[in-house]
């Protein structure tokens, strides 16, 4: 039996120093593992819900301890709005917007922002574009001027279009060399299916970017950057009255516009799994990726489903990582994540495995995902997943930019300001039985897309033997469209 004083948790208050000193002189002061006390109370922050005169919602979370501020303006409708003939148009438009706006050309815009140490830019996703600025609080007006110019007065010139498109094409060429970039492109294309708004990569394709004109960019911009689609998130050292006045002066002029169209759910895979190979000659590893139906951000099973996914692949000791990395050693890591969207979601499991273990790795991954439907989840696993998600949430509100990111997620998913509180409460109330109930329908691999990117000359035969079925070989990029 170890020293009694060492079994007390920190929450019990300061120890008796003399007792601890005595403990440290005993034969093995580390013999007894300390008892873990009850968690300290934690309530996630709730931003103030404000609004501009044109109806644009503004969420403000004041954090005055440091003179920093983070601004995010979410415009619904990102690369999902790309016309079928021009995948990549929204990303290109957004990037050209940041290359010259208002009174400033591309060079002057960048020089002005950088001179004031305002980090300004835009992130284009499938469902939204997010204008961002991180700066010293003293430079908030400058940051908002830059954002307003980009959103309201982009120049969208031919020269800027040509230059940015060349860079975007260069990014695509480089990404094609990286199997971990290629895998999500291919799975999106095949899982959502041709014609679905999420079926193409945000950066587009060389074919889709060809022939675009400033008029195309202007059309993409004018349809998306409107009050009906905007939502502003601000975190940092600024008070509400000051902020609203500054935003009103700059963003009241946003055109009214129309709401972004709902994204239809994917047709789905009904008689699968769909089995896909992509050749990557010379690769020493194979990238594995499994995509299955998940839960929408408003699905009552999301809390249980998210926790189940965490058990399977969300932490270092998750089932997938423990088996594939720690027990088998043929990978540097394996993971799974739930990705809830506004109206539907996915579960994605992924890993890169040593090429000679491709078949074994794929079998292990699939059997782990499937077996959970039968075996269910233990109470211990549930508590671990709940604790992990709680810690992740605490970390997510630990800085201005990071907190702004957490709030952007809520906006994208269509939640209210108190969602972090209700989300935490919902997850803490889940039972192990509910995890199994949420997971079991997803574990049916007949709805899954299974992808292997690797050197097919070396791995194909073993993969087809390990997972029998109709394997198809596809290219990294879709074939060029007929003109």
């Amino acid at each position, binding site marked *: 039996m170890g020293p009694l004083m060492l079994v007390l948790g920190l929450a019990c208050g300061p120890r008796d120093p003399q007792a601890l000193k005595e403990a440290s002189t005993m034969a093995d002061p580390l013999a007894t593992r300390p008892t873990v006390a009850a968690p300290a109370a*934690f309530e996630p922050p709730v931003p103030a819900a404000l609004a501009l005169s044109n109806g644009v919602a503004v969420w403000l979370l004041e954090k005055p*301890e440091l003179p920093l501020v983070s601004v995010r303006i979410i415009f619904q409708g990102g690369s999902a709005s790309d016309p079928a003939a021009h995948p990549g148009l929204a990303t290109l438009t957004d990037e050209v917007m940041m290359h010259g706006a208002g009174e400033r050309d591309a060079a002057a815009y960048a020089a002005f922002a950088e001179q004031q140490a305002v*980090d300004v830019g835009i992130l284009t996703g499938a469902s939204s574009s997010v204008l961002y600025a991180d700066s010293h609080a003293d430079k908030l007006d400058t940051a908002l001027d830059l954002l307003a110019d980009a959103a309201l007065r982009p120049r969208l010139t031919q020269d800027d279009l040509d230059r940015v498109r060349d860079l975007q094409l260069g990014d695509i060429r480089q990404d094609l060399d990286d199997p971990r970039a290629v895998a999500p492109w291919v799975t999106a294309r095949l899982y959502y299916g041709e014609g679905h708004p999420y079926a193409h990569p945000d950066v587009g394709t060389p074919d889709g970017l060809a022939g675009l004109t400033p008029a195309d960019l202007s059309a993409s911009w004018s349809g998306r950057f409107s009050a009906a689609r905007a939502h502003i998130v601000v975190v940092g050292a600024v008070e509400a009255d000051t902020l609203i006045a500054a935003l009103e002066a700059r963003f009241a002029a946003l055109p009214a516009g129309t709401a972004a169209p709902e994204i239809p759910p994917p047709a789905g895979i009904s008689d699968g799994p769909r089995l896909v190979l992509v050749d990557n000659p010379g690769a020493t590893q194979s990238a594995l990726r499994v995509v299955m139906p998940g839960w929408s951000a408003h699905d009552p099973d999301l809390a249980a489903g998210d926790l189940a996914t965490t058990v399977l692949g969300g932490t270092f000791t998750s089932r997938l990582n423990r088996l594939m990395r720690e027990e088998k050693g043929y990978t540097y890591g394996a993971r799974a994540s739930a990705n809830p969207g506004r109206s539907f979601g996915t579960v994605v499991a992924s890993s890169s495995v040593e090429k000679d273990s491709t078949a074994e790795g794929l079998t292990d991954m699939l059997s782990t995902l499937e077996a959970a439907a039968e075996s269910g989840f233990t109470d211990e696993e549930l508590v671990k997943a709940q604790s992990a998600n709680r810690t992740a949430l605490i970390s997510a509100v630990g800085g201005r930019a990071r907190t702004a990111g957490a709030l952007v997620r809520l906006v994208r998913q269509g939640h209210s300001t108190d969602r972090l509180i209700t989300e935490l409460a919902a997850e803490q109330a889940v039972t192990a039985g509910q995890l199994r109930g949420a997971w079991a329908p997803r574990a049916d691999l007949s709805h899954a897309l299974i992808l292997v990117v690797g050197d097919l000359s070396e791995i194909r035969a073993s993969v087809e033997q390990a997972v029998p079925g109709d394997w198809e070989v596809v290219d990294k990029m879709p074939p060029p469209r007929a003109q």
Partner: protein
Amino acid sequence: MASLLLWTMSAHAIDIPHQKYTLDNGLTVILHEDHDLPQVVVNLWYDVGSKDEVPGRSGFAHLFEHLMFMGTTRLPDAGFDELMEGHGGWNNAWTAEDATDYYDVGPSHLLETLLWMEADRMDGLASAMTQEKLDKQRDVVRNERRQTTEDTPYGMAWAALPQICFPDGHPYAHPVIGSHEDLVAATVEDVVGFFSTWYVPNNASLVVAGDFDPEAIKPIIEAYFGHLPARPLPPRAQPQAPTLPAQPLTEMTDRVQVPLTMIAWHSPAAYEDGDAALDVLAALLSDGRSSRLVDALVQRGGLALEASASQYSQKLSSQFFVELKPTPAATLEQLEALVFAELQAIAAEGPTDAELERIRNQLEVSFLQGLESLQGRASRLNRYQAMLGDPGYLDRDLARYRAVTAADVQAAAATLTADRAAIVRVRPAEEGEE
């Protein structure tokens, strides 16, 4: 309760409040209290890295880092991660040329457990080491090498760079990840020897940061770590200042579509004279679209897809890198010539006042942003302690950047000449070529 991080607008003073003391066995302890969130960070920094590896064991410091998670007699097998994650904690570690750093992040009620776990493996990792554990983590590390080096575009070029730039036998002459051959050669005896040599309290510094009471935690730290014995450390290698390689140009191929050139120079060690000026020079060249290289080559010139410069500051000797990826409109040789010309121009004329002001503004904001997370503060305290013996160096670190003048940047640029550079060019492999 508000964060204790201090910022005084008038004086632009910046500080991470902390206490530092040393246990009798030489373990440095640094405490940083912040009750903003119910969270703690434990950061344990060991003053050993790949520079301390012996010949034939490249990659061993990093392999050892993996083995530190493989269990002890008191907490066997996967117990370290199971116990930590079971209560909402998580951890990671990194190994570099100079150091190995372990950090645990968790809810504040887990702090005593985190300290117990770190003390436990500092005490008993070696006695529980087995061939099976070594074999498993060796496989994982070899897969890490495949994933992050061999199958990552340009990864093999980066792995080759140390050997190209440093003479045989120099502590920095091999990559941190090591070679497959050396990883395979590692034995359990190597593990035990490395542990008993370097993983001792007098070669480590412990930062505890976050939501805790310092007076309550001190006796716990003493109880868990105070009994671990100090051991004498071997003398460190004191290599001569590295010189230019005999063959300054290296041509390679890779499974890539876009070529790359990397230009490298030897430069002053971290925190030595000239180090901050080279950081400022790197920002002048490539920090932002208005920076010299990005503006001239990427934005206006259409000659490069990417251009970046960086000062990689290290204990024994640093390196300054410029990386360029050409568009189809340029060759690697053309881009290299343009970089040398730009450096010559800076050496002759220096940066403008506006450029220096931009860089200072960006540095000041980035210093602040870097301190937002508890993890970032814990890491910075330990870095300053390990590199300078002073965790409270933050204000002086910022001051050395504020003090950089145009003449300092000119002098820094003057050292980066073509005849002092090593160049590694990576070109797309032909089909079937490795």
